[in-house]
Each structure stands twice: as C-alpha cells, then as structure tokens.
C-alpha cells in the first residue's frame, strides 16, 4: 500500500489528532531545544495534523513554517486547523523534496522519517535543502532499542526502517550532517495505571509500559549542516 493510501485513511478517520495528542508529550520538549531565530524558515516532514509548525510559530517566532506530507488528506486537515497565513502545508514525498538548495533553516520530523522509501536518500535531500548551520531534528518512537515498538510494523502497510541509535548517527554522517546530540526524551504524561490494572489490552506488565514511556520515550537525533 502506498503512503498516500495508508495515511489518507488515517487522516479521514481522525487519527491525525490522536497522534498529535500522544506525540506532543515528547515533541514539545524536542521542539523547545531548537535554536530558532526570529524569521527562520522551518520545514516539518510528515507533518500529520501540522501541530509542530503551529507551535513553532506561536512560541519560537519562526518566520515561515511549511508542513510537507505525502497524504493529501493530512495536508488538507492541517490547513483547516490554522488561519495563520505564515504556516503553509503541501503534499510531497520525503525522497524528492521540492525545495531549493540551502533554503531551509531547520527541518523537524516526528514519527515520520522511518517511512521514507530510501531513508539515506532522504537524509541527503535534507542536507541539500538546509542552509549551512541549519539543523535537522529527527524524532522517532519506532527504533531498534525500543523493543515495544517492533510490532507496530504488523499493523502498517508501509515498510518501516528500524535503525538503532548508532545507525541513526552513522546515516546522518554519511549524508554529510554533523551529529550534535542524541537523546531519549521520556514521556512523563501518558497515564500509566496501577499494577492491578495489568495485563491491559496493550500491555502485559506495568514494567513494560513504564520502560516504553518513561525510559525509551522518543529518540531524538540532531544533525547540523556543516
């Protein structure tokens, strides 16, 4: 199934908003670290509901924010959620970014990068469009060390790339990006029930759920164009 078919479906059934709620718990901490200067141009890859761009405009004085998504329905929803004319959404694919060389100050991507058909090529595309000194904030919950995420592939028809921390660092460097930081950002807000509630529908043990959210959380890798 194509990205478009899979995620148009998610968008029309309202899953874009559900993801926004869940991802915000860790995304907000990563977004707060971005060294955004007033007027900067920011691109959100796989923007979904587009919340990251709206937050960067509201809190970080970003100049223009563009959200790119392979699903037209996602881009349509995102457009409806804002009337800020300095936030724009467009349809496009990670492997053929429709931007000029050196045209973007910062690229953000949450829970989307690993859907790229050719992630190494996507990193090269990101390195191409970033101006020297621009950053790529790549946040993922689906990665090798997070064993609790491995089964997600079973319910998604788009092939997902499952790198470990070191593979992320290496791939960034191969694409010409400097690696500035790598971090696990814990999700301290998702409610974890008392031990008596386990097993739940999704979790065998409380320990697993604690490990997934409070320990592994979101893996952030920050690259910088040289």
């Amino acid at each position, binding site marked *: 199934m194509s990205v478009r078919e899979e995620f148009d479906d998610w968008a029309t059934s309202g899953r874009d908003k559900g993801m926004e709620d869940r991802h915000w718990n860790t995304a907000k901490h990563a977004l707060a670290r971005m060294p955004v200067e007033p007027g900067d141009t920011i691109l959100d890859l796989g923007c979904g509901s587009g919340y990251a761009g709206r937050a960067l405009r509201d809190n970080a004085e970003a100049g223009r924010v563009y959200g790119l998504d392979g699903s037209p329905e996602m881009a349509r929803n995102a457009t409806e959620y804002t009337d800020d*004319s300095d936030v*724009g959404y*467009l349809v496009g694919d990670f492997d053929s970014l*429709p931007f000029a060389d050196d045209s973007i100050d910062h690229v953000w991507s949450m829970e989307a990068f690993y859907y790229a058909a050719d992630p190494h090529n996507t990193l090269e595309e990101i390195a191409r469009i970033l101006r020297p000194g621009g950053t790529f904030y790549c946040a993922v919950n689906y990665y090798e060390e997070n064993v609790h995420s491995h089964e997600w592939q079973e319910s998604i028809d788009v092939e997902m790339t499952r790198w470990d921390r070191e593979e992320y660092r290496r791939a960034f460097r191969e694409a010409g990006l400097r690696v500035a930081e790598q971090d696990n950002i814990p999700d301290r807000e998702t409610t974890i029930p008392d031990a008596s509630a386990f097993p739940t529908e999704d979790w065998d043990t409380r320990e697993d759920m604690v490990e997934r959210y409070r320990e592994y959380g979101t893996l952030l890798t920050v690259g910088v164009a040289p």
Partner: protein
Amino acid sequence: MKESLLEILRCPLDKHELELEDAEYADDEDADEDEVVSGTLVCTECGERYPIEDGIPNLLPPDMREETPA
C-alpha cells in the same frame, strides 16, 4: 499557499524553478500578500506540471500522484 513560497519551492524531480500558471487568488482583504487558491506549477526545465488545489500545492513526483486505485 502564499505566492512567496515560490521563492524556495522547486520541481521535486530536477530541482529547477517553478512558474505559476492559471492562478486564482483568494479575495481576502486582510491578507498582506497574495494567497493562491488554485493553479498549476510548471517546471521551467522539464515542463512537468503540479496542481494547486484548495490552496495546497501537490509536489509529489508524477508517478506517486495518481488517484488511489479502486
């Protein structure tokens, strides 16, 4: 989309500049700049055409753009 996006938008295939054709604009008096509601973006190099619908440009490579098969 705002017309100023054209400054950094490029053809996804060959990264050349795009030209806006058949543009229709929103008649919003508050807008500080022209908001394109529909039109076509044409690559100045390869001639490939990309639609703008409901203000959203679709820059998918042409082979990914076709409608969902039934």
